[in-house]
């Protein structure tokens, strides 16, 4: 009882929190290899080496930062990612936080992530980080609607806001097939919440690293780690919402969840660098004028499908 409710879910969440970002870094390395950015052996060690370098490098301080908020921001981002992972159902019994409104809670994590990313850029009190922070807020305020509509779409057939119910409702057919627009839109949300690829408005190259431009050492390590962990958490939610979570033949549930999460991560790691970064203005327009109506369509589709 205690084992099922507390120990296993906690162990799985912590394992995902530690292993997930590492595996994502390896996947990123693979993609970089495909693009011809890196070469040679050491694919598995490369993330550790980079991490070791960040641990050795001294942490930067700026002239008059909001010191406490600046150091808190990466840790909070990590905490949000961990909170997201806690919502992921690993099997019917093993869910760290199985509440009736876990979809809403995930929405809150998305909203609060915007706050934290803003805080990271704002607190440094330097010019490039500040611009990065404000840019990201434009994206953060725009993508959240898309995300919520898409998630409400999966809640319709489940008649519940709990992720476990959402998975159970997919027993016959996964949502990825039942609501074909849902997963693609949701993947965009995943790129946006971790500001990767085309949505890298926060840490973009034109700002010499954006919110990270004046961050070094261990703080940067935690920031990048949290960013990866957030994508891992996202992949967990995407797995539960669209890919049937633990459902699958032969293997035990948690393994299925892990495989599906890895598949989502691999897809995102490949998608991220494949597209050019949007200008902030394009990005806001795209979210509101193209993706939001598409999310409406997805919702209508889901509604019609759920009633029939």
């Amino acid at each position, binding site marked *: 009882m205690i084992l099922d409710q507390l120990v296993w879910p906690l162990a799985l969440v912590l394992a995902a929190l530690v292993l997930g970002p590492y595996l994502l870094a390896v996947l990123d390395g693979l993609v*970089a290899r495909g693009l011809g950015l890196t070469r040679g052996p050491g694919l598995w*060690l490369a993330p550790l080496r980079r991490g070791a*370098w960040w*641990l050795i490098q001294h942490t930067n301080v700026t002239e008059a930062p909001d010191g406490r908020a600046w150091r808190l921001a990466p840790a909070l981002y990590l905490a949000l990612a961990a909170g997201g992972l806690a919502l992921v159902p690993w099997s019917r019994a093993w869910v760290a936080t199985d509440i009736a409104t876990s979809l809403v809670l995930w929405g809150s994590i998305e909203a609060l992530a915007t706050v934290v990313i803003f805080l990271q850029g704002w607190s440094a009190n330097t*010019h490039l980080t500040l611009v990065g922070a404000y840019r990201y807020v434009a994206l953060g305020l725009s993508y959240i609607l898309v995300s919520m509509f898409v998630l409400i779409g999966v809640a319709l057939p489940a008649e519940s806001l709990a992720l476990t119910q959402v998975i159970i409702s997919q027993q016959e057919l996964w949502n990825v097939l039942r609501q074909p627009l849902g997963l693609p839109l949701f993947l965009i949300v995943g790129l946006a919440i971790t500001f990767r690829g*085309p949505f*890298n408005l926060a840490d973009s190259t034109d700002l010499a690293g954006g919110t990270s431009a004046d961050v070094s050492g261990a703080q940067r390590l935690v920031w990048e780690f949290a960013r990866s962990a957030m994508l891992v958490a996202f992949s967990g939610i995407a797995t539960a919402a669209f890919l049937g979570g633990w459902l699958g033949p032969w293997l035990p549930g948690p393994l299925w969840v892990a495989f599906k999460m890895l598949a989502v991560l691999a897809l995102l790691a490949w998608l991220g660098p494949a597209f*050019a970064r949007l*200008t902030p203005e394009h990005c806001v327009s795209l979210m509101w004028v193209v993706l939001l109506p598409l999310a409406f369509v997805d919702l209508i589709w889901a509604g019609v499908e759920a009633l029939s």
Partner: protein
Amino acid sequence: MAVSWLARLAACAPVPVFPALGMRGEEALYRLALSPEIKLVDSPRHASLLLVAGGVPPSMQQALRRVHDQFPAPFTTLWYRSTPLVELPRAAVTTVDSLDALPGALVESHGSLLRNTVGHSPRLLPDAPPHPWQGLGDDGHGGEGMMGGVPYGRPMAMPPTEDLRDGLALDVLTFRLGPFFPLWPPGLEAEVILQGDIIQQFSVQSSPFPRALAPVFHEAREQSVAIAALERARARHHLQALFHALHLAGLEGLARDALRLADRCPSGDIALLAKWFKTFERRMKRRGFFALHLPERGALRQEQAERLGGFAARAAGIDRDARTEDDGYRRLAFATITQQAGDTRARWRQRLAEIAQAFDLAARAQRDDMRTAQTDAVETPRGAWRDSRPGGTSPLLEDLLPGLEWGEALASLASLELAALSPWPREERAETQMGGAA
């Protein structure tokens, strides 16, 4: 114990290098971008090595000291064809003069830095705040009243001035950027006034370092040269410029591909090059370089375009090209390509079209071994070189950039070539070796 274990691990990490480019330092940048063991970064906070490539004029040494001091410990410096700052101790300085030895030297420096066998670079500037503040002002932190004084060493942002776009006049941020800002041409130094993320005022304080062209352009001014060689050099120049734009767009893989193509330009099989370029161009379009990233802003006015000349003028619809005056080109049925819009997107369209055209011309010229017929006007990638070399035109940025969002402004800047032409050609030695290496 634990630290040494960490250090050994970190010593094998991809070497994070911040390049501070001096005069004629680009070749090092292009070389390192293609070295898999090197990771070029855009901020000194992310680097363990400061690479100074090329000569730094005395007026910019203070700026170099500032960049140097912004590295978090531990770090060290490496000087490629550059004179180290005199106050740096010998232990913290490595000098390299050979391009081929550069990546290896960087890896070596990083490794020995972490194994503590090479000296950490010391701080060069005095540890003093920009303005003294301790114990001053109303509360002992330098501030006075609501907005006055120098809290923690700096005054607060400027009071409102008129805004360019909407009617809200809010604070402006004034700062000087460069000359070692890695996302714009090396040597460019400007005072930027931002209101929000919109550039409100841009005043150039020093122009970019003169850009060295391939020797063949200089030869063409003196004697008849092979058109194929000229066109290959042109394509190479544009492809190298494309590297910067693709890096800005976050398309790192494609940016490397552009450099690889550029490296093959001088000696590669021309038919293959043209084919590869076509694929490359298609991928670039598919990945949204134009549609997602490039703004339809930054359009040059007619007279600006004329002053700038070259591809920028042709992108703005001015049908002018020194190649039309050359009999050699005429026999190849050369026709200029033009675009109408004259904005950032049109300029890249134009440049890509000119690369494709260059490959085409080179292929046909090579077949018949065509040579240029005249020497008094050469169309360089930077514009026509007639009696005098095309000069620097960076002041036009003061007109062009205000009103643009930061990212749009940098994208527009990357689509232009504003540096003057260097009177000396690029060294051939490096070029052939790079061609060979690729």
